[in-house]
């Protein structure tokens, strides 16, 4: 008897709870409010509030898209990558280190792309102890994975468009949005791949 009433109470509580937390989707409200309240500043135009196909999928599926959706969009993203015309993927790791350190670029107080912000989220070279942990450590990137052409291509491609490899990755698409130039991406690839780079010591 006591058990039964406890069960009833639980059901009632669950009903109440479901009433209190409406299931309706607030994303349209959120977007309408933002479009009303935000304004363009510097290079950051209002168009930046619009979702592209990748952002829309990640927003809709809370960063966990169904396999079919992910595969289709990743394929599309992979096709956006412009590989260097000269076929060379490795630049200068020394300037790569500087680009990795620089956290500026694409904000409303910037003129365009500047740095790669790599250390914000990743451990990269062994000398820098101020590194973030949002992304995996890249220390000994090639030493662990190998120095081959396929790994080089993966490193360059991932920097160019991280979403081609993992649709809802938190990593920006630096090449895709023009935040880094081809040369800068080559330099970063060298930082990760060059056997002489401190990353691989």
């Amino acid at each position, binding site marked *: 008897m006591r058990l039964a009433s406890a069960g009833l109470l639980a059901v009632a509580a669950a009903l109440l709870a479901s009433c209190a937390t409406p299931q309706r989707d607030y994303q349209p409200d959120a977007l309408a409010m933002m479009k009303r309240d935000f304004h363009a500043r510097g290079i950051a135009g209002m168009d930046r509030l619009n979702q592209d196909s990748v952002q829309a999928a990640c927003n809709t599926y809370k960063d966990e898209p169904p396999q079919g959706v992910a595969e289709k969009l990743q394929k599309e993203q992979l096709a956006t990558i412009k590989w260097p015309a000269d076929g060379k993927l490795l630049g200068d790791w020394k300037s790569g280190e500087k680009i990795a350190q620089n*956290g500026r*670029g694409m904000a409303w107080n910037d003129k365009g792309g500047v740095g790669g*912000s790599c*250390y914000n989220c990743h451990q990269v070279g062994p000398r820098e*102890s*101020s590194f973030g942990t949002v992304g995996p450590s890249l220390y000994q990137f090639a030493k662990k994975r190998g120095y081959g052409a396929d790994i080089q291509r993966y490193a360059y491609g991932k920097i160019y468009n991280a979403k081609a490899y993992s649709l809802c990755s938190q990593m920006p698409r630096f090449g895709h949005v023009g935040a880094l130039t081809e040369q800068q991406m080559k330099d970063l690839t060298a930082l990760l791949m060059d056997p002489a780079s401190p990353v691989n010591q």
Partner: protein
Amino acid sequence: MHQTRRSFIRAGGAAALLAAFGAALLKPGRALAAWNKGAFEAKSAVDAMRALGMANAEDSKAIDIRAPEIAENGAVVPIDITSSIPGTTSISVFIEKNPFPYTGTFDFSQGSVPYVHLRVKIGESSPVRVVATAGGKHYTTVKEVKVTIGGCGG
């Protein structure tokens, strides 16, 4: 004058001489002296210490410096200094890697306790040197403070 301190070896002889000359003009020793321009404008801790007549300070374990091993922000680094050397009348602070290392001297009179808390700017990781003065003699100790990059760097 003893020149055993590590930083003395690094110091340029000419600069040290010049500073010593300046110090002579400005009267070394702080008692009743005006704000010591020569010491404050010295570009090395050792020159500043000369200008203050503290170059012969001997190492001491009786000075406690409490400062972060790694400072969260070099713009505001908290430092607590306590001297347990009897009769301490002043405490001086030098941030060796700052462009102008001499940061200040704190004088205690009427029996005030030889303790001070201050917050300083440290431009890059640096030894923080403290000199305590007691009975006209100078004692020194040093602590390393590292400064880091935080935030998004944007």
